[in-house]
Structure formats: structure tokens, C-alpha cells
């Protein structure tokens, strides 16, 4: 006595070798696909490197002495700039603490305040508010005069 499963699988046992071959074929296809995708990824990486390397090869390498000279000049300029920046910074710091400069600045500030106070707009109380309406005849006479 057998179960239907045993009968079914038993009937097709002979297909085993063919199925093994198919399995191997499928696996080789899969590994081929894997290597292809890996190769594609590798080709992308190499393309990026190639694109990045192209300007290096065509622009920099043929005239590398000129580029090195330019680079050195730029480096010296940057160094000088940095050193000067430090010096002026230090000078600015010393000026900030100088009492004579502070005193002169305060004097100038005071003068400025006085000048501005003279030109200040008079307060609202001094300004004439809403002049009383006059007859039109008087207005025209004033305009003609």
C-alpha cells in the first residue's frame, strides 16, 4: 500500500538525472547573472574613475611643472594672507584697548550728538496744528502776493 504522494514521486524518479542537469543549468545561469551584475557594477565604477581621471591625464599631467609652480605660488600667497590676517587681528585687538583712541572716539561721539540735537525736529507742541480755515478769497490774495 502506498500513499498517492509515494506513487506520484516514485513514477517520476527516472527524471532525477534530467532534473539534476536542469538544476545545475539554472544555477549556472544564476551565477552568470550574478557575475554579470557584478561586472556591470565594476564597469560603472571604472567608468566613474575613467571620467574623473580624464581631466587629470589630459590637463594636469602634460604640464605638471607649470601646475606645480602655480600651486606653490598659491600656497605662498595663502600663507602670507594668513600671516597678515593674524597680524592685523592682533593690531585691531591692541587698538581696541587703547584708552587714547577710546577718549577721542567718545569726544567725536559727543560732537556728533550735539550737532544732531541742533537739527532735531521740534516737538509736536511747537508745531502749528490744524490752521483755522480761511475764506478762499484770502487764500488767493495771499497766493498772488
Amino acid at each position, binding site marked *: 500500500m502506498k500513499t498517492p504522494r509515494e506513487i506520484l514521486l516514485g513514477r517520476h524518479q527516472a527524471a532525477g538525472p534530467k532534473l539534476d542537469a536542469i538544476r545545475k543549468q*539554472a544555477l549556472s545561469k544564476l551565477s552568470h547573472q550574478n557575475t554579470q551584475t557584478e561586472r556591470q557594477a565594476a564597469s560603472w565604477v571604472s567608468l566613474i574613475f575613467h571620467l574623473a581621471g580624464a581631466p587629470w591625464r589630459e590637463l594636469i599631467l602634460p604640464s605638471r611643472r607649470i601646475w606645480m609652480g602655480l600651486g606653490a605660488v598659491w600656497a605662498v600667497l595663502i600663507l602670507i594672507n594668513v600671516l597678515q590676517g593674524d597680524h592685523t587681528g592682533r593690531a585691531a585687538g591692541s587698538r581696541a584697548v587703547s584708552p587714547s583712541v577710546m577718549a577721542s572716539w567718545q569726544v567725536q561721539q559727543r560732537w556728533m550728538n550735539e550737532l544732531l540735537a541742533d537739527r532735531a525736529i521740534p516737538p509736536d507742541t511747537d508745531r502749528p496744528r490744524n490752521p483755522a480755515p480761511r475764506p478762499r478769497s484770502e487764500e488767493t490774495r495771499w497766493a498772488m502776493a
Partner: protein
Amino acid sequence: MPEVSAPEQLPVAPARAGDPAAWDALFRRYQLPLYVFVFELVRDEQAALDLVQETFIAAFRHIGGLREDEKFGSWLFGIAHQKCIQRWRKRTEILVAEIPESADDPDGAPDELLIRREQEAAFMKLLEQLPPPQRAVLLLHFIEDFPLEEIAHITETALGTVKSRLHFAKKSLRRLLDANTIL
């Protein structure tokens, strides 16, 4: 012959990661059951072999879509079933035999049905005579002992339809075996 009743630890996760050894193990486990299922549906050796290979390749390509690793088997049979349907459609065969949806009793486990040596030929002949939708359900039930829900998922049919197909298939099988005064 691989056992189906015990829960299996299938190397689905490493297969998903692209491990060839895991794929080899999975294919080795399912190659014969899958071939039997496909062969009994298409009744053509070369076509069955081709469909098994196509199923393997499709499984490799679409493993990312498998949500539950423990359902790898039913997922694989689902792919094979779809391939069979595509082949049938190409050959414009009429497949669907309408069966009334009844029969709540799926008639027990597949191992309950025992067949004597002298009945084997009759059993195979009957299987061949069944309409393909009934045959597919019966094969999935017999070969891998899939639960009815999974069979419904594989065959993309309603659970009630699966139940009725299995019921009628088994009924036909019993009738035949009774006619031969066996079982």
C-alpha cells in the same frame, strides 16, 4: 524521497542574499515534487522540464517579493502553476470545468488514501482524466500536503472553490477505486 509533514528549515534567507549553495539546496528539495506537479498538469516531459527550469529562474529573480520565508514552497508552486496556465493559454486549451461550490469537508489528509500496487495505474489514469483545475488542487494536496488556504493562494482561486474541487476530485478517485473493489 523528501518528507513533507515535518516543518523544514529551508535556507531561504541566504538564498535571498544570493548564496548559490542555498539555491542549490532549495532547488534540490523541490525539483522532483515540482516536476511531478508540472508534468501531471501539462503531460509533456520536455515542456515540464522547461517549465521547472523557468520556475527556478523566476524564483531567483523574484525572491525579493516573498514575504514569509516558511511559505517558500507554496510560493514556488504558485510560480510553476502560473507558468502552466501561461502555457495552456498559449495552446488555447479549454481548462475551466465549472464545479458547484459546496463540500465543506476536504476529506482528510492525503495519507488517508492508500492505494495498492495493482491500483496505481488506475489511479494515474484517473488523475489524467480529471479536469486540470481539479487535478492541480489534488496534486498540490497529494504532493506537498499544502493547507487549503495555501492551495487557494497557489491556484489563485477562492477557498470554497478549492474545497469543492478537492472534494469532487477525491470523490471521483474513491468511486474509481471502489469500482475496482479496493480501498
